[in-house]
């Protein structure tokens, strides 16, 4: 009983104290209150946080199909600069595609700046295999609504879009030229062996490793001109891809990629060229088809694209200067003996209208050609905002 009384007194004292505190706060004059908010605004604190990301929505119609709204998505990006040395970037991915909602963790990377030349990073990161994944795929950057052939999770993928591991990266001046470099260790791709329809293909979502071997990879970029207008890059990755303990344990893969980026002012136009060539060579292995027959082949696949964009950025007329014309050729060659074989190419023509520096309306006409089949046209309309 005594204890209860004591508690009650303590509680009421606390309430009175809180109340008087609130009361005294309320007694502040408007000027005093303004001063507090201004000083809060002026002192940003040491931990800087930015919420960035992008969102997009659209409409697509393939051949004689009925056409449908979508895909649409929203990808918030969290950036935390904890100090001049510590940095975190994380992106969540949410997309509605073909009537389904997909959630994903696009990247979640912790960085530690070692010195001027090197930063070490750990986590899930966009693959520095070429530049498409790391630098060009966000919808407000990509000139086209759809990814090039071989770069999209929707079809056969020729090369990784993400890695899970550790990396070392940086950039440096080399006289008037510049170089940049990334080396990494990651879980690496895994080989599909049990599903005949896909046997021999690689799966790149290396969230858990299927063997003891870690993939080793890297990219070296070279910018020969002092104005940084041209960058040429080469990337490679090598890994064992078979499941531990299986007959494919020693099956390995070598991946190679070359990329190019060139920007140049031509008269009143901005010219922007981007391209990437990916090659995948999996060691020869024997898989089984649906009837149990042996299928022996080495998965040698290729995918590439070359993209050109022109924008009359130096014209006075506000409407015309925001228009951009884009063209892209992309192709994918898959191993002949596999059950997912096929050569495919695509020509894309795009008309883009830039609403501001990171918001764009895209209207694309795509012509797809699967070898031995008729050409098929598709229309994609997409609006994308970066923020």
């Amino acid at each position, binding site marked *: 009983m005594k204890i209860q009384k004591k508690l009650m007194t303590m509680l009421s004292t606390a309430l009175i104290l809180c109340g008087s505190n609130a009361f005294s706060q309320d007694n502040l004059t408007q000027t005093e209150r303004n001063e507090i908010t201004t000083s809060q605004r002026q002192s940003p604190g040491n931990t800087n946080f930015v919420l960035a990301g992008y969102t997009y929505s659209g409409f697509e119609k393939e051949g004689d199909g009925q056409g449908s709204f979508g895909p649409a998505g929203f990808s918030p990006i969290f*950036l935390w600069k904890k100090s001049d040395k510590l940095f975190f970037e994380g992106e969540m991915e949410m997309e509605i595609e073909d009537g389904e909602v997909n959630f994903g963790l696009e990247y979640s990377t912790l960085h530690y700046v070692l010195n001027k030349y090197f930063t070490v990073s750990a986590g899930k990161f966009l693959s520095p295999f070429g530049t498409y994944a790391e630098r060009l795929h966000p919808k407000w950057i990509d000139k086209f609504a759809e990814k090039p052939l071989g770069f999209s999770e929707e079809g056969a993928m020729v090369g990784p879009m993400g890695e899970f591991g550790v990396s070392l*990266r940086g950039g440096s001046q080399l006289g008037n030229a510049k170089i940049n470099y990334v080396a990494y260790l990651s879980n690496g791709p895994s080989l599909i062996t049990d599903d005949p329809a896909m046997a021999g293909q690689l799966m790149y979502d290396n969230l858990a490793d299927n063997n003891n071997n870690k993939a080793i990879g890297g990219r070296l970029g070279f910018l020969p001109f*002092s104005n940084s207008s041209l*960058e040429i890059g080469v990337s490679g990755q090598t890994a064992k891809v078979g499941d531990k303990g299986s007959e494919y344990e020693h099956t390995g893969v070598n991946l190679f990629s070359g990329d190019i*980026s060139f920007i140049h002012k031509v008269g009143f136009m901005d010219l922007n060229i981007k391209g990437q060539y990916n090659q995948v060579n999996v060691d020869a292995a024997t898989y089984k088809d649906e009837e149990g027959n042996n299928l022996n082949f080495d998965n040698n696949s290729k995918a590439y694209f070359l993209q050109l964009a022109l924008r009359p950025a130096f014209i006075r007329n506000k409407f015309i200067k925001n228009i951009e014309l884009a063209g892209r050729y992309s192709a994918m060659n898959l191993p002949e003996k596999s059950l997912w074989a096929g050569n495919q190419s695509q020509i894309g023509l795009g008309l883009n209208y830039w609403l501001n520096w990171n918001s764009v309306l895209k209207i694309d006409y795509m012509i797809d050609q699967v070898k031995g089949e008729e050409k098929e046209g598709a229309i994609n309309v997409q609006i994308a905002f970066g923020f």
Partner: protein
Amino acid sequence: MKKLISIVTGAFLFGAFIIIISSCAATKEIADKSSTQLWGENCMRCHNTPPSSAYNNTQWETISMHMKLRANLTDLESAKILEFLKSSN
């Protein structure tokens, strides 16, 4: 064993590479570049150049670090560009 040898060789080459790049200072032409010029040359390589008014100083601090890491910009150019963005927004 083979793998170990290739890792050791790789590490050795990487070491040599670090020594070469760190001894390679920017030429006078590069060191003399203004921060505005560096902004104009670098921030449009992957996407349209964002105007400095798009973000406040605190946001630019964070975004600059993001871009330095994403684009592997050199320390000097990244610092100069940040200075430009903060002084002109």
